[in-house]
């Protein structure tokens, strides 16, 4: 966080330099006028989490502008956070203008990740808004000569209770001025029972602009004099550049420069189509070794590469309990590499001229991107400004940061603003992938119908390779340096939901980090949680079947948290669940041979966050191996609900995306490179494959803090589908994706 006086000065100078971008460019949300924005900038000191003026500015025209470090990634969080501010400040949400994720203008609230925006970011904004409300009441008290206790606020107007003629607007109280107030944390917060905005469905602020082509995505940023860049890609980041024949593009129209730094090769051209054409035409040759394993050997390679292990959790003596069990069960589950697969390939615009760099990026961490960009450019960090501009949905660490590095490097080379739009091939082959994982489970159910032993061992590459101060954590920096930074292995993400929340007397949960693997991996929605929950909740089902116990009942026997039991009961009711022991010979078979089944799964996200229970109903065609998810019921408890419709939208999205990941998605590669570089090579769910219905119960707990809902509902879906396939057919599918081939294979195995 930049709070020193020197950074204040340089920031002001910087903003003056960049004035054209602030005042003259319509990047800012609709509703912010240049006047109020210029005023706001003049008022701001360097953003500091403690200073009220860093969060909130009120104009003479009563306009409220909030400066938020958390950013809109398409999940509706900018609307939910507006609701929180509107509630505490007593203004209509529509009156609030929003500036988000600007490394020079907004407080660093940390990256917008891990479903933490409402939980943590919202709590900060709530305190800021409450502090502003208290400050405004105190100002009004002095001016209206009435005690604060006799004042009330209605949509930005403070008045004396019972005497509406004595009133002052927010603008009249502080408009154009500063609060000069530290956030004490002691300003009174409203009780949830008083909420009028929070907890009620509010239409997403930006959707009208999004459905009419008026929303400014980072892809839509155009700066005066802007030109277009493309990076010419080697087969892999560690390839050696042998030659670049610049004459191959010398006669092409519009080409400004071939840029070469280390093994980074790019072209810059006046027009976008010229840059695309030049990048294709440029004759560059690389050498690379075929280091990627055959897909069939992938998981064996994981085991050979992992040299350490970490006990995530342990209780009792699982090894002895397993050894003495009458009927121990063992199962191996596998998950593939998957893509974020944003519909819009990553894009950025950089303007690097002289000693100042401005980068427009859909990064999840504008503040965190400053250091690697500065290192890449060889500039001090306080000369680099990163301005978040919404992108295509990212679902985690996709190519957004990397393309910013590409654009910055090319802009620095040509001294003009450069826009870089990744191709579909760039995106699929170069985004950091969601890690593949291998699971070996063992367990047993005792004579008392409870689980007597449970062991989990998982192998995974890193789930966290975000950019750091090391520029080689960006693809452009890695190409310049000629190597990719391995970075510190972040194991926490892979262990998300490795341990269940079931009370198990004898359990041992062990993770085996795969420290380096020639496919770059990082955070994909939910990190390890969907994979771990696939293994855990599938295995739970296997234990239930072996012991002849209803799958919901066996879980209930190992849970005591009333909120966990409540979501399970809710989804069972919603789905019309009848206690069952999966017995495929009894499952319904339609006249066309389709077998119907249903499966259950339950996860408390990250063990301390949202509670989610799901029932999936599937159709399986044994002859083709095709699986169709017909209906999904979800019960979801994330504490206090801020925007109920926004929450439902997120749950629906998680369910559909999770069906896609479960049934269809795996990164294809050969010994050299990723080969699934278009939508045929990396298919995702289509309209003809969506469920007939997604039925959702959201359980509101106004008395409980809000926790995130951006990821949680993905986690139980893969196992719910796997369990449903077993229920329908008796075939246990233990490897994602559940392609027709794999389902047929499982069907054959089940009949052995």
């Amino acid at each position, binding site marked *: 966080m930049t709070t020193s006086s020197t950074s204040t000065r340089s920031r002001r100078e910087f903003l003056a330099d960049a004035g054209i971008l602030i005042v003259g460019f319509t990047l800012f949300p609709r509703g912010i006028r240049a006047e109020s924005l210029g005023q706001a900038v003049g008022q701001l000191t360097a953003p500091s989490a403690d200073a009220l003026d860093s969060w909130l500015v009120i104009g003479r025209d009563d306009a409220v502008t909030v400066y938020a470090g958390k950013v809109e990634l398409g999940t509706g969080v900018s609307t939910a956070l507006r609701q929180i501010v509107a509630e505490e400040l007593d203004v209509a949400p529509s009156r609030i203008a929003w500036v988000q994720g600007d490394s020079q203008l907004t407080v660093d609230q940390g990256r917008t990740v891990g479903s933490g925006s409402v939980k943590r970011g919202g709590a900060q904004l709530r305190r800021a808004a409450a502090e502003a409300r208290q400050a405004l009441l105190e100002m009004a008290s002095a001016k209206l000569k009435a005690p604060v206790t006799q004042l009330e606020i209605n949509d930005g107007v403070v008045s004396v209770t019972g005497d509406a003629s004595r009133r002052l607007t927010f603008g009249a109280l502080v408009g154009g001025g500063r609060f000069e107030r530290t956030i004490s944390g002691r300003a009174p917060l409203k009780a949830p029972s008083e909420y009028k905005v929070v907890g009620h469905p509010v239409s997403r602020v930006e959707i009208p602009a999004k459905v009419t082509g008026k929303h400014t*995505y980072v892809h839509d940023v155009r700066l005066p004099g802007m030109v277009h860049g493309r990076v010419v890609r080697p087969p892999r980041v560690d390839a050696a550049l042998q030659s670049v024949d610049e004459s191959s593009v010398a006669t092409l129209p519009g080409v400004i420069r071939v840029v070469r730094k280390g093994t980074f090769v790019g072209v810059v051209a006046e027009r976008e189509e010229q840059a695309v054409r030049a990048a294709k035409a440029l004759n*560059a*040759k690389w050498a690379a070794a075929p280091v990627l394993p055959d897909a069939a050997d992938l998981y064996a390679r994981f085991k050979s590469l992992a040299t350490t292990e970490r006990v995530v959790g342990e209780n009792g003596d699982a090894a002895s309990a397993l050894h003495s069990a009458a009927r121990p069960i063992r199962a191996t589950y596998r998950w593939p590499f998957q893509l974020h697969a944003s*519909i819009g*390939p990553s894009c950025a615009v950089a303007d690097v001229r002289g000693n100042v760099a401005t980068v427009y990026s859909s990064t999840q961490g504008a503040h965190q991107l400053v250091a690697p960009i500065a290192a890449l450019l060889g500039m001090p960090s306080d000369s680099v400004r990163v301005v978040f501009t919404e992108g295509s949905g990212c679902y985690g660490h996709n190519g957004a940061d990397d393309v910013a590095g590409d654009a910055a490097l090319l802009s620095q080379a040509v001294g003009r603003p450069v826009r870089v739009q990744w191709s579909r091939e760039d995106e699929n082959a170069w985004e950091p992938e969601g890690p593949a994982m291998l699971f070996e489970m063992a367990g047993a159910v005792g004579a008392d119908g409870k689980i007597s032993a449970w062991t989990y061992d998982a192998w995974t590459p890193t789930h966290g390779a975000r950019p750091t101060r090391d520029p080689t954590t960006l693809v452009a920096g890695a190409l310049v340096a000629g190597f990719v930074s391995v970075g510190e292995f972040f194991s926490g993400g892979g262990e998300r939901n490795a341990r269940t929340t079931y009370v198990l007397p004898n359990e041992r949960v062990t993770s085996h980090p795969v420290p380096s693997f020639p496919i770059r991996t990082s955070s994909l929605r939910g990190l390890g949680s969907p994979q771990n929950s696939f293994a855990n909740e599938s295995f739970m089902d296997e234990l239930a079947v072996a012991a002849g116990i209803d799958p919901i009942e066996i879980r209930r026997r190992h849970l005591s948290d009333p909120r966990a039991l409540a979501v399970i009961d809710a989804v069972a009711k919603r789905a019309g669940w009848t206690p069952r022991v999966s017995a495929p010979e009894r499952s319904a078979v339609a006249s066309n041979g389709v077998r119907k089944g249903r499966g259950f799964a339950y996860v408390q996200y990250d063990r301390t966050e949202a509670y989610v229970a799901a029932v999936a109903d599937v159709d399986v065609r044994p002859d083709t191996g095709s699986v169709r998810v017909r209906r999904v019921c979800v019960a979801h408890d994330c504490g206090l609900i801020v925007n109920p419709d926004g929450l439902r939208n997120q749950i629906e999205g998680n369910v559909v995306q999770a069906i896609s990941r479960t049934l269809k998605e795996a990164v294809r590669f050969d010994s050299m490179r990723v080969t699934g570089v278009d939508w045929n090579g990396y298919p*995702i769910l289509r309209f003809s494959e969506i469920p007939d219905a997604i039925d959702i119960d959201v359980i509101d707990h106004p008395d409980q803090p809000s926790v995130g809902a951006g990821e949680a509902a993905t986690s139980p879906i893969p196992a719910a589908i796997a369990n449903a396939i077993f229920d329908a057919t008796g075939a246990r599918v233990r490897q994602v994706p559940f392609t027709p081939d794999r389902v047929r294979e499982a069907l054959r195995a089940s009949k052995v």
Partner: protein
Amino acid sequence: MPDTALERQTMLAPAAELVHTWHASSMTAFGHDDIRVETTASMPQPSTAVRIRVNGVDHDVSAHPDTALLYVLRNELSLNGPKFGCGLGQCGACTVHVDGAPRRSCVTAVSAVAGKDVVTLEGLGTPDRPHPLQQAFIDEQAAQCGYCINGMIMRAAALLARTPRPSRDDILSAMDANLCRCGTHMRIVRAIERAAAGSVAGPAGREG
């Protein structure tokens, strides 16, 4: 260590085939002819500019006739509705109407639409005066990141212009060629159904 020298090349042929599941009905609504690639073969720089009509206004464009219509709409006409998604005609984010039919602007040469009527998302309606389908998307809150929504609305608008009261299967079939990653499909279908229901009282809106 084998020395594998690779030359840059276009790896991908434009996708002609779409993946179907067993139950997918035939693409009868209006086929997938919006996915065909239309380029002019000749490469020499022309001396005459291409004139195109977009949202009712004529423009002389400076781009080479082979240039994808998408780049012309976005970069010359500053129309941000159509989006770059794949450049391969596979995802639909770039969809526009050409003479009323949905067409992938990323694989359509600008010269191929000379003399034809091009309508973009901006041509359907504005935030203040949205097209009924745009209003239905707002009413259903049928967007998350919204990047694919241009294609969803343009494709659905063409469907409703031809089939004002589509069945659910008609909708799924028509929309099957467009991809959404946020998983907003359920809401998109509801929005199309809502717009179709509203069209009983009148036309769904402007035809292309």
